[in-house]
Structures are given as structure tokens and as C-alpha cells.
């Protein structure tokens, strides 16, 4: 079907065409207080289309795949292309890249996932919540969920690219509350994997969620001060997410990032190595090729503190006179596995070096400014004195600047776990402003 649409578009006058088709089967169950709350199952298909005529680009998507709708959509899209202005940087990857990646070796698909019985999935969610609810101190539950997804992705373009692959995802998660009504603490944990056997057990997910909830109970306020802050892996992952937005080739050509013109410069501590790697077997961000069919690669982003590459699709690469890094994601740029390489330090060791400091566990809010790298977020954490954890703190904000944070990394943890596709290990960052009372 994808091939047919490419040829219809060509016949209708398009110079270049890219078609992607996605079929998804999904299942999810939410269990709360040991009862099924929601049970969802569905199969859907979507089409995305990009056409270029005389260097002018138009996009379309549809979940209505009936012949009449598609014909009308194709005609409209080609016609619509003439309303865009000619853009010398537009167009498919050229010359057409060769795909040498062996897809099965990437282990994106687990045949066990489609075979999982609904009863088994429901039982996993129930068991996870049951274990958590039996723990003292847990007073309410947001419920446990188990989700699976199987997708088949096809990509064809007018340069002769035609490939497809299948992928699976499964996820077990749990959200909890502890404490009484006006002084509650919240916490959650999850495990998401492509392969069912890699999912953490209900015990592991439950115990982690419980511990992460209880440790925030009865927080205190603290005075405004600058202290070393230990970013837990989930917090480093959040910081990496911000870095990822700032090294996107699109943000760079739009000059919407503080890293514009910084290629080759030292932007971080020499302990910092960051990669975008689409080829790590069975990892969440892995894919054989990007949404333009450019084969995945391992891209050094920061090496020993030096900025090496921006993440580019073909368009951003042409604008910046660089090469695509196989990060095309729809019409924009997105990461594959974007991670900060693990170091050798243990987080317990980092804590023991803190005379006075904060273990950052959660942030809320939106305070990120890619233009300047400025960060200002509400935070929850544990206060450390004399190398010992003292008490939880809340109603604080941490603020500073991503560029400064990266330069001030004093220790890199050994606990990188690829829990999310954008991730990092524990990081000790010196001298961060924590505002409280």
C-alpha cells in the first residue's frame, strides 16, 4: 500500500514523496484497590505523507484509509504544496542512503508480547498493587497499570526506499500516596521494555514505588542557599531531556538554543560523555532507520565535555551544512537512545561526601528556557548533612543554568539503566541554588 501511494503521488505530479504506515495493536489495564478500573484494547492504522513539488513541501496524515479519502487527500496535498514557498533545503535524503543494518539483531520485537493472555496482564498489575498496599504507611493508590503495544511500521519513498519492521513495548507502573489528607506524599515507579522478560517483577516495581513515596513524607522547608545537589537517575534523565532539546538541529537553525555556534567548544565537565545511539539492541529508543529512512547510527554529542554534534534530520543538516544524524522524527528532530555515559561513582559515595546538600528526587513545573539554558523548577528531595540523609524537603525550587550545571558536574554515577530512552546516571552537581523560605 505504501508503495502504491508513492506511485500515485508521482503520477499526480509530486517530485518527491515519502509515505509511512503504522499499524498498532494496544492493550492496557488499570487496577485500583485490586479491582479493574479500565480495560482498553484496540487496533488502529495511520498514514503519513510528505510530498515535495518544485522544492515546496506539504504534509498530510490520515486515520481514514478508505480509497476515496486517500485519493482526495493526495490530490489536496500535492495542490497544497504549491502554497508553500520554495525552500532550497527541502527534499528527501540524497543520495538515497544504503541500509546495512540487520533489523533482527536490534531485538525490537518480542514474539511473547502478542501471546500474553489478558488474564496474565491483569494479574501482573493486581499483584504489583497488592504488594504495595500491604506496606505500612501507604494510604491511597493511583493504581497499577500494565500496557502492551505491538506496532508494524512501513516506510516508502520515491527514491526507492521500502522497508518495514515490527516492534513491541510493555510497561508495568504504579502510583501511590502516603500520609494523611492534607500532608500527603506522592510517588510512583515503572518499568518499560521492548522484551517482556526484561520487565521488572511486581515485587521490584511495588517496593521501589513504596520506598519512593514514603521517603517524601513529612517534608520540611529549608532556607535559600547554594549547595551541592545529587541528581538521581530520573532527574539526570530530565536534565538530559532538556539538553536533547537544546542540541536539536531544528533549535539550532532557529537560533532557539543557547548552544548555537558552540560546536567544538567545551560546554561541560570533562567527565561528561553524551551519545545518541539508535543501535543499542532492545533499548526503547532503538530503530533501524529514522523517519526519513536514514540508517541509525551512534552519534557522539558531548565527548569529554566538548560539544561534538547536533542531532539533525536531513533538512536541519542542510540548513546547518552538517550531515543527518538519523534523528528525523516526523517533520522534526527527535532522539533515539540519548544518554549520558555511566561513570564509576556510587551514589552512596556521593552522598557521604556532602557536608550539606540535597538529593534531588522530583521536579515539577515548566521552567526551562532553551534560549538561555535557564532552569527554574519546583523540587522535592532529601536534605543531607554530614554525609547523612536527614529529612525530606518540599516547596523549594532549584534554579540555575544547564550550561553551568554541566560544567559543575563533580561525579558521574555507575547506575545508568536506560529506563527511558533519554537517560542519565546519578550526577553530583556542585553549588546549585536551592530557594526556600
Amino acid at each position, binding site marked *: 500500500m505504501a508503495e502504491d501511494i508513492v506511485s500515485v503521488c508521482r503520477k499526480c505530479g509530486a517530485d518527491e514523496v515519502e509515505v509511512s504506515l503504522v499499524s498498532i495493536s494496544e492493550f492496557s489495564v488499570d487496577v485500583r484497590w485490586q479491582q479493574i478500573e479500565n480495560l482498553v484494547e484496540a487496533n488502529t492504522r495511520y498514514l503519513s505523507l510528505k510530498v515535495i513539488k518544485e522544492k515546496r513541501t506539504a504534509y498530510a496524515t490520515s486515520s481514514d484509509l478508505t480509497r476515496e479519502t486517500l485519493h482526495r487527500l493526495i490530490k489536496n496535498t500535492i495542490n497544497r504544496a504549491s*502554497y*508553500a514557498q520554495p525552500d532550497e533545503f527541502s527534499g528527501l535524503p540524497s543520495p538515497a542512503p544504503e541500509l546495512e543494518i540487520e533489523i533482527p539483531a536490534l531485538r525490537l520485537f518480542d514474539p511473547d508480547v502478542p501471546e500474553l493472555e489478558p488474564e496474565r496482564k491483569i494479574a501482573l498489575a493486581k499483584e504489583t498493587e497488592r504488594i504495595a498496599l500491604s506496606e505500612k504507611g501507604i494510604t491511597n493508590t493511583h493504581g497499577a497499570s500494565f500496557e502492551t503495544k505491538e506496532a508494524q511500521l512501513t516506510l516508502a519513498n520515491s527514491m526507492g526506499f521500502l522497508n518495514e519492521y515490527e516492534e513491541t513495548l510493555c510497561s508495568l507502573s504504579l502510583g501511590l500516596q502516603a500520609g494523611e489528607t492534607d500532608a500527603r506524599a506522592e510517588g510512583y515507579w515503572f518499568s518499560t521494555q521492548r522484551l517482556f522478560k526484561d520487565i521488572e517483577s511486581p515485587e521490584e516495581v511495588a517496593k521501589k514505588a513504596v520506598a519512593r513515596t514514603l521517603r517524601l513524607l513529612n517534608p520540611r522547608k529549608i532556607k535559600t542557599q547554594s549547595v551541592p545537589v545529587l541528581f538521581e537517575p530520573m532527574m539526570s534523565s530530565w536534565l538530559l531531556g532538556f539538553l536533547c532539546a537544546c542540541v536539536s538541529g531544528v533549535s539550532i537553525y532557529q537560533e532557539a538554543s543557547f548552544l548555537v555556534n558552540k560546536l567544538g567548544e567545551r560546554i561541560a565537565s570533562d567527565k561528561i560523555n553524551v551519545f545518541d545511539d539508535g543501535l543499542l539492541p532492545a533499548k526503547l529508543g532503538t530503530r533501524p532507520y529514522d523517519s526519513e529512512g536514514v540508517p541509525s547510527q551512534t552519534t557522539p554529542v558531548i565527548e569529554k565535555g566538548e560539544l561534538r554534534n547536533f542531532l539533525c534530520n536531513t533538512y536541519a543538516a542542510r540548513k546547518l551544512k552538517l550531515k543527518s544524524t538519523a534523528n528525523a522524527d516526523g517533520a522534526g528532530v527527535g532522539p533515539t537512545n540519548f544518554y549520558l555515559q555511566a561513570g564509576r561513582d556510587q551514589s552512596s559515595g556521593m552522598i557521604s561526601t556532602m557536608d550539606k546538600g540535597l538529593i534531588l528526587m522530583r521536579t515539577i513545573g515548566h521552567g526551562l528556557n532553551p534560549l538561555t539554558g535557564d532552569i527554574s523548577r519546583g523540587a522535592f528531595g532529601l536534605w543531607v548533612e554530614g554525609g547523612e540523609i536527614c529529612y525530606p524537603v518540599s516547596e523549594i525550587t532549584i534554579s540555575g543554568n544547564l550550561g553551568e550545571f554541566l560544567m559543575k558536574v563533580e561525579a558521574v554515577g555507575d547506575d545508568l539503566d536506560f529506563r527511558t530512552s533519554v537517560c542519565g546516571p546519578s550526577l553530583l552537581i556542585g553549588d546549585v541554588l536551592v530557594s526556600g523560605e
Partner: protein
Amino acid sequence: MKKAGLAFGDIFPLSREALGQILELSLSRGGEFSDIFLEHKVHHFINMEEDIIKETLESISLGLGIRVISGDRTGYGFTNDLSLEKVKKAALTAAAVASGKRGEHLISLQPVTSAHNVSPLSCPPERASLEEKISLVQRAYETAQKTDQRIKKVKVVYLDQGQSLIVANSDGDIVSDQRPLMKLTCSVISEKGKRREAGFSGGGGRVGLEYFSEKVTPEKIGQEAAEEALLLLDAVDPPAGEMPVVLAPGHSGVLIHEAVGHLLEADFVRKKTSVFWDKMEKQVGSSQLNIYDDPTIPHFRGSYNVDDEGTVPKRTLLIHKGKMVGVLQDRLSAKLMRMPWTGHGRRQDYTCIPLPRMSNTFVDRGEYDPEEIIRSVEKGFYANKYQGGQVEDSGKFTFSVSSGFLIEGGRLTAPVRLATLIGSNIDILTKIERLGSDLEFGLQTGTCSKGGQAVPVTDGCPTIKIKKMTVGGRV
């Protein structure tokens, strides 16, 4: 409003009788209630950056979701293949959540109509040409660019969406609606020496193209975005610590939306995860405070004639003189809490289960002159525009203020960039000292996210003075 089944016969290949039979099938495993949500959505997008109309997009979404409720369990199946075979499969998927004995139901669907029309348009987006829409984009772009030499980059996005929907349920109701939605936004980057700042503005709602000549012109949007970016070039870093805070009218509505609105959504109250779950009829804020959610305001982004469960919505009083008096209900929570529907069951699209959601949420006007309020602060912070905010069920919240001012000696002085407001909702509501007489609404461009579902919303408030609040920022 148009009668169901007539207006969209061409789009939705299912007759009223067929929908009735599908509902009967969904209840065949013993469920108590079932509904079908049929949706057709066409969405257009135009993007201008780097001085060119870079691309356009048309997106078509057609599909159906079937829900079955059994006690407090929900089964849901959805499909974008509307063949009877696939639709029946989705019905059986949803039906499986119930495990009672086979139910016997005969469902005859009767049309329900809404009393109000939130989007009477003279020029609906589907009737406007692409040229007209492109011209709006170019006008905003050029205005922003020409405002000042320090404007370095401009990006303008136009979005419109025409949503047609039918909701049919096992109570025998069938409702249809058509919802236009439009927005034009402008983002700007300014530069002075090494300093670079961003500005944003926009407009829209359930409006037609006439909005951009009568209400908010593209030129105004371009200019506002540019002015914000220019103002911030001279902004100082925010003060840190506890201090009196004055919230600007309109834009600060987002604070009420996050810190109060979400926690008055019935699912959080019913599940006792919200700090408000045991506060009904109790004082939770200053006695000056009245908060409403009103889905019936004409042309507002958050408005609708019927909600996504087919319920005709009502303006709902949530906080009256500082007392909690209402919650936002969908059918499931209302049933379980034995409370009336309020018409706040919304969903992102046919792939989603409806949830209790806000529409247009606002703090009603108070008695004080807004200038008087600012004059009453010797030293404090004025929060003007926001990047966004987030709240926890416990009521703890964080807001990112993209631009504000210092208040010194009762006057707004230096502009302030990227500050954070943090606090706990009941504490802050109690510390409201004065409400201005100047009720305004924020930009008609907002989207609210909950459980992974995004829906359009609006919020508003008058000038609000809070006695003491924690401001975080760089020192």
C-alpha cells in the same frame, strides 16, 4: 443544532439503527451502561519560519470508541475501521469488562439537542481559502519582524480544526455536534549583545476568520510577541524567597486552573487522592473568592454545546465565598458519587476514555481597584505571563513565570524573567488578600493535559494579591 445521523451520514457510514444494535451488543455481557463516540476531525496547519511559508499540513482523523461501564469498571475498545465487523469487535472488547449474565436490552435512540450554541460563525475555517489563512500568518510574521531591529527570529503557526461528533448511549440518547477551533500563535526571539530572550502571543477560540478582523488582529499578535521579547532584554533575574505576590489579570488564570481546578475534578475527589476530597462545604480560601467553570461561554476555546459523553453542560460554581461547593463531573464519577452531571466529561479523541475535565475556569471579579492593589505592596513580585504550571494531588504546585515585574514602593519597576512560584493550594487561597474588579481571560491558545489526554481550555481571573508566596529564581 442539527439532528444526529442527518448531518454526517456521508462521513459516518453507520445508521441510527445500527448504532442501537451495537449498544445492545456492548451490553450483552451484563454491563450497565454503554456509549459510542464517533468522531471525524480535520485539522490544518501552516508554519512560517525563516521568512518563508515553510510547510502546510492536513490531518484527517476518523474513528469510533465504545465504552461499557459495569460498577466502577470501564471497558473500552476503539477502531478507525468503521466496517460493521470491526465496530462489533470493538463493542465486544469493551463488553468483556463486565462478567454478569447476558443482558437483554432494546435500545431506540432519540435525538437530544443543546440549548446553546457556543460557535455561531460567519466565516468557519473550512470555508476559508488557504490563501486567506496564509495571509493571516504573513501579517503576524511581518509585524513582529518589523517591530524592532533587535527582533532576530520569528515563527508563526496557524492551526484550525473542524470536529464532527456523534455520541449515542444505552439510555437512548443520541447527540451530534460540530466544533470549530482555530488559533494563530507567534513566537519571537530578540537579541541585544549576548542577551537573547523569547516572546509569545496568540489568539483564537471556537471562532471563524472574522475573529482576526474584529477581535484580535494578526498584527496585534505579532506586536505583542515582539514587545514581550524586547521587554525581557532589559529584565532582571527574579527575587528569591517569600514575599507579597500580585497576579496579573487574565494570564494568571492558569494558576487557578492548575492549583484549584484539577483537584476539583470528580475522579480525584472520588478516589480521595485530591486534597479537596473531604472539603465539601468547608472553607478552603478567602471569603472573597468565587470560582466557576463555564463551558457555555460563546467562542471560547474551552466551550462546547455538549460534552464528549453527550451531556449538555452547565456553568458550575466550584468555590463560593471561599467554600468548596462543587466538583466537575463526568457520568461515571457522578454515578459513583450520587451527584448530578455537570457536563464536564471530555476526551482528547475517539481513542480515549472520557475524564472529568475543566473547560473555561475563572475566578470571579472582586471589589478592589487593580491599581490600588499594586499600590498596597511596598516590596513584592508581579507575575504577568506564564510558561505553564503543574500541581500534585496533595495541592503542591509550581508555576513558571516567563515575565513579571518587581513591585517597589507600590509601583511596577524592573521587568523580571523566568521566575518560579511555588506553594500549596489551600494555603495560597487562604492568603488571598484582595481581588481586583478587572476580570480578564488569558490567551485563547491553551491546552490542558491529564492522563495523556490534551483538550483545549481557557482560564481567567482578576488582579489577585497574595499576602505571601515563595518566589524561586536566580540570585
